[in-house]
């Protein structure tokens, strides 16, 4: 692992009380075409028992970040620099043994596609019991009992019987429940859920999200929820981190970010999302262009080629100077608060001026 030169100012120290603290993380992959800067100087903190929603599109680095936290990246092609502190313990340079003891025990992960993420060759019960045996030293019988208990907890009917089933005998929603049971079996302090409901149907997604929230209260785990869907974050998370091209561009509580987004990319995301409450006859406002290649990300602000407000900032500042994301609530953008306020004359929604949705006739009886 070689060191990566760090840009800009050094990282601020980890916030006190933070349970997971990622400081100035860089992840780079060597590929045939060149070096992919998958994560480019990312910092965030997560407190015990709270949920952080990491929002971004494909290639924003949100999944890579979390694989790096667990140390599941391919070490031969990956360079990692920065700090990942889990409960004060440094993970970036940690040995395989140390990580193995933490994985599935103190930190666990739920993957997107429960069909491919569960092994087709072993029973669900066995796959859930496996990490429990490994981390607690429980007997085979104890571990099995625990697996059945977990299946019951995540709402699998007839858990004793279903524990003997193979994943392909489960429906999509049940597989994801089994996956959750597996992740929570050792009572982890940190749960990373990577698009946990993207492969599921809407009604099942709603069940799973609520279940995750309920289980979090019971287990007290901190959750990192990775998703492309702002709606999912809104319903589940406490805080939001918006990522774009390997960098965090905005951070704040769910309420702050969704009600008063401060980064033009967040504005764009909100405006391009059709919702059940917006005026359906009005065109959506897409973000023009496509996300940048991470082989050669744009200089300065990575969003500037797609941003409508670079002229407002003036000069070549957006393409020349990388905006920094302040600690706590804030956005990595050169626009001044006054400029943003002016651009969002619509009020608190963060809409650019060209976009005012008209009031729609009341849809519900008053």
């Amino acid at each position, binding site marked *: 692992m070689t060191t990566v030169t760090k840009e800009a100012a050094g990282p601020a120290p980890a916030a006190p009380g933070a349970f997971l603290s990622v400081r100035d993380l860089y992840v780079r992959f060597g590929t045939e075409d060149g070096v992919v800067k998958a994560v480019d100087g990312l910092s965030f903190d997560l407190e015990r028992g709270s949920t952080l929603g990491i929002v971004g599109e494909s290639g924003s680095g949100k999944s890579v970040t979390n694989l790096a936290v*667990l140390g*599941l990246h391919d070490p*031969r092609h990956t360079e990692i620099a920065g700090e990942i502190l889990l409960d004060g313990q440094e993970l970036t340079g940690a040995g*395989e043994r140390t990580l*193995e*003891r*933490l*994985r*599935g*025990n103190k930190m*666990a*992960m739920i*993957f997107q*596609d429960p069909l*491919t*993420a*569960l*092994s*087709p*060759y072993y029973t669900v019960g066995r796959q859930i019991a*496996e*990490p429990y045996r*490994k*981390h607690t030293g429980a007997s085979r019988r104890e571990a099995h009992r625990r697996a059945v208990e977990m299946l019951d907890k995540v709402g699998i009917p007839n858990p004793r019987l279903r524990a003997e089933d*193979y994943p*392909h*005998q489960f429906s999509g929603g049940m597989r994801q429940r089994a*996956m959750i049971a*597996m992740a929570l079996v050792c009572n982890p302090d940190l749960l990373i859920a990577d698009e946990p409901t993207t492969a599921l149907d809407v009604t099942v997604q709603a069940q799973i999200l609520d279940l995750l929230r309920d289980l979090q209260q019971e287990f007290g785990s901190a959750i990192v929820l990775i998703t492309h869907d702002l709606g999912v974050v809104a319903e589940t998370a406490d805080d939001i981190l918006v990522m774009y091209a390997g960098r965090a561009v905005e951070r704040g509580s769910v309420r702050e970010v969704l009600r008063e987004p401060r980064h033009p990319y967040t504005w764009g995301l909100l405006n391009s999302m059709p919702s059940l409450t917006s005026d359906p006859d009005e065109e959506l406002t897409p973000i023009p262009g496509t996300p940048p290649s991470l082989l050669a990300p744009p200089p300065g602000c990575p969003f500037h080629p797609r941003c409508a407000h670079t002229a407002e900032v003036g000069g070549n500042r957006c393409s020349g100077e990388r905006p920094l994301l302040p600690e706590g609530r804030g956005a990595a953008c050169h626009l001044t608060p006054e400029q943003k306020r002016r651009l969002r004359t619509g009020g608190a929604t963060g809409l650019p001026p060209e976009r005012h949705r008209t009031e729609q006739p009341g849809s519900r009886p008053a």
Partner: protein
Amino acid sequence: MLRFLVRRSLGAVVILLIISALTFFLFYSIPRDPALLACGKNCSPEALEVVRRNMGIDKPVPVQYWEYMVGVFAGRDFAVGPCPAPCLGYSFVDNTPVWKTILDRFPTTVSLAAGAAVVFLTVGLGAGMLAAARRGTLVDKVFSAGSLVVSSLQIYFIGPLAIALFVYQLGWLSQPEYVNLTEDPAGWFAGLLLPWFVLSMIFTANYTRMARSTMIEQLQEDHVRTARAKGMSRPFVFFRYAWRGSLIPIVTIFGVDMGSLFGGAMITEFTFTLPGLGRLAVQSVLNTDLPMLMGVMLFAATAIILCNVLVDAAYAFIDPRVRLS
């Protein structure tokens, strides 16, 4: 599962019937009369008729086929004596019972094939898995290049070379020979060591490459990553999760290779002059010995089909999705 096996076995019977019929009718399309050969130089038409009747080839071909098949299942009587089921007839050449000759010869072929399979599965899969685990390192590169070279060799080329080297030059091994396993296990082993080595050579190379590529594929599966995310150790994940998945393609290819393994065994018999089924088959073709040829064909086909049914059963054993659907 049981249903599946029964259905497969029924299919196997159909295939065997087709093979036997094809062999039978093809044999009679050869413009050579086995009776004429058996009758000798000074053969009168009357004598020829007697020979024909004794050989059971005086009737129309379809009737002969029918009688032959009845004999296989129920036994039949020949001029030379009764022949209990499974009756494969008597050799045209020396009137020995075919079944007995085959029972006599097949242990050589099976020993050859099975021994070689053990060698190439162990060495090939081992090397392939090691290459996959050490992907990109020197070990991987050496194995990959080596397997490419070895897979282009042929039995009748390396066979004599191996004898020249190990038997005559170095004197490490004696001339290959077949000794009955039950009589002298050590002799059996020593006598077949060189043929095994030669026969398994090409297969080893192929299995190394295949094991490497399927393992690499499996190691990138989502569920393998999940297992690592659970904190399972690298070796555990490698053997429990990735290896299990790579078994399916390997077993598939192994089933397909069954035919060429027997074929290879027969060539090896020739190369090392071992008394197996392969030499028996070639001799019976040269001698226009229909019963012997039919016997060997049916026996070999049954063996190969049986192995394939076992392979299918192995799928179900390996993959619960096959077993439980």
